[in-house]
């Protein structure tokens, strides 16, 4: 569950790139449910995740840090497909295989395959989501001592579960980038019938991203309450620290029980590209706005900018730290502009509002918003 949480944080925290790679290192502490005999376990974890187009995967290993913990290795490989969703229903399908092995004192191996079809419908600013679930797997629990001095035993279990759920998600405040969701799920599994209802919320707070979830489970073994709070903070380019704590919920397919756990993970993105400065940055200042224009052209000897804001007179830009820069104080409005780089007209490919100037060249467009 910690890995699922860490992966879901990573998947929702970092912008998708052509290929994204995450390296996670952390510690986690878990306690058994109150009605289960067992000792707390602590382990250190090292692993990685990748996102490559529609595919994703992970591989993790953990080292036990106390006598109650067990070493384990696990991995995931999956793919997701999405289409539609604007002005009408959208559809998606996610498939994945998960395998792991847990060591001493009782070896526990499992492999599962899951398929999650989804359909969603925009309802104004909210989204109604219908999700299905199907999973198959096999687990083996092997005790070399047969429960203490006896012959080795091995219990092989065929795992299966199917079900689905309904969820409504809605933004609470675009300015605060906060959203909330609520839903219900039902599963039929080898262990019996699982029912769940949940509410949750998430959003941004400066450089941090938070997420909380409360989920009530009615399981064959009794009632369970799942609580989860996660906080992810960007440290610097390519580095994020993630923390999670709560009481995990059961997995209908694996039959794994709920338990209190928490963890701290340092995430490194080795493929994170240096962020290019934005071409245009706006800083409101009274009745006007200070506009900072930055152009990365290391190869240029001279760069000037000209546009509607300068009555199309060239204004020389200053070279600083490998970039060409200029600050302008502009009132609200829309301005076409471009650059002369060593005498030649130039507009970057990713400049906003690229429009032909009626003279056979391109201009970019700068918008300074009103109050």
């Amino acid at each position, binding site marked *: 569950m910690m890995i699922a949480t860490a992966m879901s944080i990573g*998947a929702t925290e970092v912008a998708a790139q052509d290929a994204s790679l995450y390296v996670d290192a952390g510690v986690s502490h878990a306690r058994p449910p109150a009605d289960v005999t067992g000792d707390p376990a602590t382990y250190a974890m090292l692993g990685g995740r990748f996102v490559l187009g529609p595919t*994703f995967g992970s591989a993790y290993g953990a080292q036990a840090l106390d006598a109650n913990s*067990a070493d384990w290795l696990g991995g995931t490989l999956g793919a997701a497909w*999405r289409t539609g969703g604007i002005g009408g229903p959208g559809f998606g399908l996610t498939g994945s295989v998960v395998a792991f092995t847990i060591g001493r004192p009782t070896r526990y191996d499992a492999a599962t395959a*899951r398929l999650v079809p989804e359909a969603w419908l925009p309802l*104004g600013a909210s989204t109604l989501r219908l999700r299905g679930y199907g999973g198959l797997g096999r687990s083996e629990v092997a005790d070399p001592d047969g429960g203490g001095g006896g012959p080795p*035993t091995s219990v092989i279990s065929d795992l299966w579960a199917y079900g689905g759920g309904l969820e409504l998600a809605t933004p609470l405040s675009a300015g605060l980038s906060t959203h909330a969701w609520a839903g219900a799920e039902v599963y039929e599994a080898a262990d019996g019938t699982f029912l769940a209802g949940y509410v949750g919320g998430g959003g941004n707070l400066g450089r941090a991203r938070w997420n909380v979830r409360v989920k009530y489970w009615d399981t064959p073994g009794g009632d369970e309450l799942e609580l989860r709070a996660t906080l992810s903070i960007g440290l610097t380019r390519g580095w994020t620290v993630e923390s999670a704590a709560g009481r995990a919920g059961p997995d209908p397919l694996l039959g794994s029980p709920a338990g209190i*756990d928490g963890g701290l993970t340092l995430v490194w993105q080795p493929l994170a590209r240096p962020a290019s400065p934005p071409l245009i940055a706006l800083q409101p200042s009274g009745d006007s706005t200070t506009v900072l224009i930055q152009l990365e052209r290391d190869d240029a000897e001279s760069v000037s900018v000209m546009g509607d804001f300068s009555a199309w007179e060239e204004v020389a830009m200053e070279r600083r730290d490998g970039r060409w820069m200029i600050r302008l104080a502009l009132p609200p409005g*829309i301005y076409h502009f471009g650059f002369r780089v060593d005498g030649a007209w130039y507009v970057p490919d990713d400049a906003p509002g690229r429009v032909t100037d*009626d003279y056979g060249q391109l201009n970019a467009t700068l918008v300074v918003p009103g109050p």
Partner: protein
Amino acid sequence: MRWTILILLLLALPAVTGNAAAQDDPLARVRQAYPTATGEIEAIISDAESAGAPADALAAKALEGAAKGVPAERVVAALHQYSLRLRESVQLLGRERGASSIISGADALRRGVPAEQLRTMAMEHHGDLTVPLMVMGDLMEAGVPAGNAYRVVSRAMIQEHNHEEMLAIPGAVRQMMRAGQGPGPAADAVGQAIGSGQFHGAMHGPPVPPGSGPPDHANSERGKGKGKSSG
């Protein structure tokens, strides 16, 4: 000698002050740049202004031509075309929409945004349309079909995404396209993220199915499942 210099300075003064005045008045600068085409240019600007189009935009377009070394006859032709687009934008968006929205509408038409989309946007959304129209143009330039582009922008407007987040939409769509998605599906994916409240200027990776990791507690007695034993 001193008197000669003083007389020469006095004679030069009107030219200096005249140039200074021209710097402040765009039309005066246009007259200076295109003295033989002044009449035609002023007529185009005057006609457009009476139809509700922003005159400053046309004067700026003429100054742009002068800065780029464009001959007078091409500037007149360009102003004529631009004037037509500005007037069409006024008709589609309404005179009360404001100069920035009108100019942005003319740019959108130039970039291939269907007139019908401008009319629909004006009917369905109030207020300033400058940035939404610019984003529509950016999306269509990236290859997104007009209908998909409009739905993404409209959704973002309904959710009151701010200036910066709106301007980040085309970049997010291009990002998805670089990952292998077609323009339409990429726009739909961004629109879906907007709709679910998860678009904050960047796109995210695929979701993770439940239970993608080992159990939380490895040594519990529960959850062994039903099955045969061996050994």
